[in-house]
């Protein structure tokens, strides 16, 4: 029972020691996070303004924005950006619908809720590369069982064309990440007051009306948070494409382009320009989400 009469000096010294402790506790984690993000991104900006090609170490020097103009004037960048955005939009849209369906099944299940939760966690536990191999083997014309299914031609060469490759890539991405989407949506779904549904039912609303008039509007914040996370994640798509096509037949994503320039061709200047542009794209997507739906995103954090 420290009375309110305790000297202000004492209180402030306690606040000060609390602050000091807090900073000491946070410092290692903050340093570890900055070490591999802030410094490298700054270094990437420096590299991107230079002609650094590890195959020709003697050449080099400051070249201004010419790496950026080289990237931005190449068809490859725009093709890859289109591919990335195409895969991102398509897979996130499918995941949203599918994730919502699974969340509703989990939420409203008469029975079997545990079975559904158990099975949706399986994709989460599987390495993305492993899932990519599994779907690649399944769709391969030689080893796969998919072409043996009814309605699908035995001759279908899934990885022989650009958009049929995208179909398999998107399927693998959707399979791997829908559980995450479903769990986030379920977390939003359980916060809705069940009495609203009872009232709507009494008033004669159909199941579809209850979904579009109650569930969707009340879940908007949760949906937006899930969309933001998954959109940014999908923009980084790399593993699945690398395993399935290695970017052949114009199926590259921007991350694959960056990897090819940096690691395969050792052109750190051009590769860093690609890296910085990807960073700016991610920043732009996040900015649009936060600007467009800022307050809604805040509401989407029940614990915050």
């Amino acid at each position, binding site marked *: 029972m420290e009375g309110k009469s305790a000297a202000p000096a004492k209180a402030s010294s306690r606040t000060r020691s609390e602050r000091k402790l*807090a900073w000491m506790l946070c410092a290692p984690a903050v340093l570890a996070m900055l070490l591999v993000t802030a410094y490298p991104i700054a270094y990437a900006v420096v590299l991107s303004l230079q002609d650094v090609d590890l195959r020709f170490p003697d050449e080099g020097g400051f070249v201004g924005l010419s790496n950026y103009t080289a990237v931005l004037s190449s068809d490859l960048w725009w093709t890859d950006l289109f591919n990335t955005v195409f895969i991102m939009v398509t897979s996130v849209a499918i995941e949203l619908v599918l994730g919502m369906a699974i969340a509703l099944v989990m939420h409203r299940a008469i029975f079997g809720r545990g079975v559904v939760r158990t099975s949706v966690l399986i994709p989460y536990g599987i390495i993305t590369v492993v899932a990519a191999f599994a779907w690649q083997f399944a769709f391969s014309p030689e080893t796969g069982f998919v072409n043996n299914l009814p309605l699908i031609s035995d001759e279908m060469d899934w990885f022989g064309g650009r958009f049929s490759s995208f179909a398999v890539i998107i399927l693998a991405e959707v399979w791997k990440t829908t559980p995450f989407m479903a769990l986030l949506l379920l977390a939003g779904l359980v916060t809705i007051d069940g009495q609203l549904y009872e009232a709507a039912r009494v008033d004669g609303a159909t199941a579809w009306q209850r979904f579009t008039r109650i569930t969707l509007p009340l879940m908007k914040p949760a949906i937006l948070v899930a969309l933001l996370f998954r959109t940014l994640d999908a923009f980084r798509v790399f593993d699945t494409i690398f395993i399935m096509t290695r970017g052949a037949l114009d199926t590259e994503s921007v991350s694959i382009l960056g*990897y090819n320039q940096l690691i395969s061709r050792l052109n750190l200047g051009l590769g860093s320009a690609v890296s910085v542009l990807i960073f700016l794209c991610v920043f732009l997507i996040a900015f649009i989400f936060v600007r467009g739906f800022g307050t809604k995103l805040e509401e989407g954090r029940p614990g915050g």
Partner: protein
Amino acid sequence: MEHRTSRDYALWTIAIALVVIFALIPVLWLISISLKPPEALTDQRFIPSDISFDNYKSLFEGGIDDSPFIKPLINSIGIALITTAISIVLASFCAYAIARLEFPGKRLILAGALAIAMFPPISTVGPLFDMWRALGLYDTWLGLIIPYLTFSLPLAIYVLVAFFREIPWELEQAAQVDGATPFQAFTKVIVPLAAPGVFTAAILVFIFCWNDFLFAISLTSSDASRTVPAALAFFTGESSFTAPTGSIAAAAVVVTVPIIVFVLIFQRRIVAGLTAGAVKG
């Protein structure tokens, strides 16, 4: 209107069955293909007609020096465990401060962690590749542990903050009234209460490291530090004429089944952690 008819049960059964089948197909397919003998690999059957364990044997043939799989497996487990341990210790300190103490900069740290969670890893690959070669960290365990630490910390911090906020604050004060220092109050009172949350965060961080592919192929060049996902991408067949499909499938099953069993055992915690880490803050 809401009485449940047998039609309702039938519809639910179908819905549940669809979800289960969708989730399980790739896993069952990998198991199937890993058990097929090479001559049956192209039979396009989902269920193998003959079963052979040769693909599994070939993974471990030649012992630690010649097996294409044992060293990557050791690397994967070692790197993921070390990263998890360091990440959880650092994140616990940080999350404790954020959940329990008042200090300026709290919101900035949370916002910064969120920004890093959304950061594109490819943007750091080039600089890290260059720096690690200069510092001798290229193709070493430490060279992977450092970026994994960075990118797993936001996840660990968010999960732990969410769990720490649920812990009864009064118990810590009671300990301090009884003469414990803030540090003792942390280690003797909060840590045992926080153990379930810490364990959940550890599982999520481990799975994050276990799953990484981009850093693993960019910052390694040999079995000295190459992890399983990277090794799988560079697998070669028994001879240059056989595709490594069977061995990849067998290796995939070996690294998948234990994790799935683990995930299923701790599924409640994982669900709580995934949603806490992403939604709360």
